[in-house]
């Protein structure tokens, strides 16, 4: 194993990330107001940034690995992660931007006028953020172990340190450039190697992966091939979790605030749909080629390294090494960008609600609080990742989506489209959805080999936890009808009317 390309790639990505962060910081100094400046981000740039932030280790490594190991069923992960943006577009994008909320707790407090709802939301943001960060750190360790033979703690530690440096020094503006750069880096890092590998494959007579799928799993190209009714449940539950969970991810919501207005929020989301669609065309190709050229990886437990190993296996020699360096760079960019976005979201909530509770002086007195918050936000999941066994990148991320879909999705949907929501109803629904899906996640992470219907229901909780949370919110809100906030009508005006119409928005 030649470690040089991997080391060069990781070093270059790290340096480029830090450099662009610093450069962006200099630009943002020329504007008078840091946060208002962020609101001028145009749809193209903003969409690249959202794509860069969103395409995590789960997308870069996990999807190809799942497709490679389990076959066509797993296509629902990338499809769901993309379709989630369509659901977000039609139900949430413009109203969320118009609400003026910076984070989900901000939205909840503004809509319901309740500090208690805010506290529950903050807790959930931290929980979802950590659940999502955990596999990013583990993926980083897998990457460095696979490409340069590093000890299995090194990747997580490097990512944690770079993210901390970036997050504590930069603001939204500089992060926007970093994230946008990383989308295009990730796309290039998958596109160029797969183009070369497809030429190699064509040179080998282009064997059909669906025909060589005979390594112990003949059902590889068949969706739901072995699942029966349970498989059907798992697939639909996954669809619900990913379609509805995207809107509840803390790092996604923060990005919408940087759009100039509701129209731009919609256009940005549309571009995101395009960017994600282009990206997700590529991982299935890696999975399919892996069936031909790396069948021994499938059962070996290191299938997550498929994207990294494939160039070397298919193209021995310096060419393969260079391509390995390229995919390593892309994978590292994936860890850095997603972790940065999540760390910002979690640190923002921690500094607002734990370290510095005062409202309105976040920029002045809050800087130290933000840094402490960022340190907590990064170190806790990093330590968890180092101490717990490998949990499977894409599946853990899938569970984070289930929790988001069971909590913030009902809150956003009802908060935006239904006047009758009350603070008590929101808290009750968040608790039902959060505890239900949280218990399922805990059970699944501990009991990983369980089988049967209870394991199926707990392993993919969204299909029951999302309706449970929604119904609870509606029923409890109806029972506490007198608590509907007085400003609800005005807030609806703010959420739904175009900014150009001169109206009192409260």
């Amino acid at each position, binding site marked *: 194993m030649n470690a040089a390309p991997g080391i060069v790639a990781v070093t270059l990505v790290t340096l480029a990330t830090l450099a662009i962060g610093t450069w962006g910081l200099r630009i943002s100094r020329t504007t008078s107001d840091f946060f208002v400046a962020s609101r001028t981000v145009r749809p193209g740039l903003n969409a690249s940034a959202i794509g860069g932030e969103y395409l995590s280790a789960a997308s870069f490594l996990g999807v190809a690995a799942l497709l490679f190991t389990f076959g066509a069923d797993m*296509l629902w992960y990338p499809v769901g992660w993309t379709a989630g943006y369509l659901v977000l577009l039609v139900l949430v994008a413009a109203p969320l931007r118009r609400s003026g909320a910076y984070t989900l707790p901000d939205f909840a407090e503004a809509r319901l006028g309740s500090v208690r709802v805010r506290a529950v939301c903050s807790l959930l943001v931290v929980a979802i953020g950590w659940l999502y960060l955990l596999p990013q750190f583990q993926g980083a360790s897998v990457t460095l172990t696979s490409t340069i033979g590093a000890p299995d703690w090194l990747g997580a530690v490097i990512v944690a340190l770079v993210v901390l440096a970036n997050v504590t020094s930069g603001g939204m503006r500089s992060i926007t450039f970093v994230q946008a750069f990383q989308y295009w880096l990730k796309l290039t890092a998958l596109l160029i190697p797969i183009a070369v590998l497809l030429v190699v494959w064509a040179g080998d007579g282009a064997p059909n992966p669906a025909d060589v799928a005979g390594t112990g799993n003949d059902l590889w190209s068949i*969706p739901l091939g072995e699942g029966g009714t349970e498989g059907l449940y798992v697939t639909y539950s996954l669809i619900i979790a990913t379609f509805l969970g995207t809107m509840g991810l803390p790092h996604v919501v923060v990005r919408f605030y940087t759009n100039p207005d509701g129209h731009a929020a919609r256009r940005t989301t549309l571009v995101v749909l395009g960017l994600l669609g282009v990206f997700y065309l590529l991982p299935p190709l890696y999975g399919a080629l892996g069936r031909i050229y790396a069948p021994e990886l499938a059962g070996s437990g290191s299938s997550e390294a498929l994207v990294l190993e494939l160039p070397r296996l298919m193209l021995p020699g310096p060419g393969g090494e260079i391509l390995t360096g390229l995919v390593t760079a892309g994978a590292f960019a994936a860890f850095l960008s997603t972790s940065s976005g999540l760390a910002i979201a979690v640190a923002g909530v921690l500094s607002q609600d734990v370290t510095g509770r005062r409202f309105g002086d976040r920029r002045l007195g809050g800087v130290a609080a933000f840094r402490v918050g960022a340190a907590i936000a990064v170190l806790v999941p990093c330590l968890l990742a180092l101490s717990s066994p490998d949990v499977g990148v894409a599946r853990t991320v899938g569970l984070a989506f289930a929790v988001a879909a069971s909590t913030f999705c009902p809150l956003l949907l009802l908060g935006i489209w239904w006047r009758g929501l009350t603070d008590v109803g929101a808290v009750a629904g968040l608790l039902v959805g959060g505890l239900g899906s949280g218990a399922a996640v805990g059970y699944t992470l501990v009991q990983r080999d369980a089988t049967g219907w209870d394991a199926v229901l707990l392993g993919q909780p969204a299909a029951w936890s999302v309706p449970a949370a929604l119904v609870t919110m509606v029923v409890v809100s109806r029972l506490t009808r007198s608590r509907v906030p007085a400003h609800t009508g005005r807030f609806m005006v703010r959420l739904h009317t175009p900014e150009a119409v001169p109206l009192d928005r409260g």
Partner: protein
Amino acid sequence: MTQQPPPERVRVTGPPRRRPGGTRTREIDAETRVGAIFMGSLLGEQLRLALRILATLFLTVGSFPLLFHLFPGLSDVRLVGIPLAWLLLGVLVYPYLLFLGWRYVLRAEANERDFAALVEEVER
């Protein structure tokens, strides 16, 4: 039609129409029943549009697992050597999602333009 020449133009003046509370935006600001109707129509229009798009999504993409479950023969179908499931979920679904999103944005913006034209028009 008669052959009379068109009457001479005269400037018509009168009391200003923009009385306090006279325009529709003020109805909304004051949260009157009329204002609530305007807001309700915008909300209803946008929600119906969103639900229409989501229903389309569910009836097409969302029906795939059920179809493949009910008709296992679909799994053997191949187009240009690619299994149908891989072609649908790996390739074709993405342009389709983009198309649905694009249609939504056009219609949602049209709804908002209609709303703006309606409420900014002076009440007669």
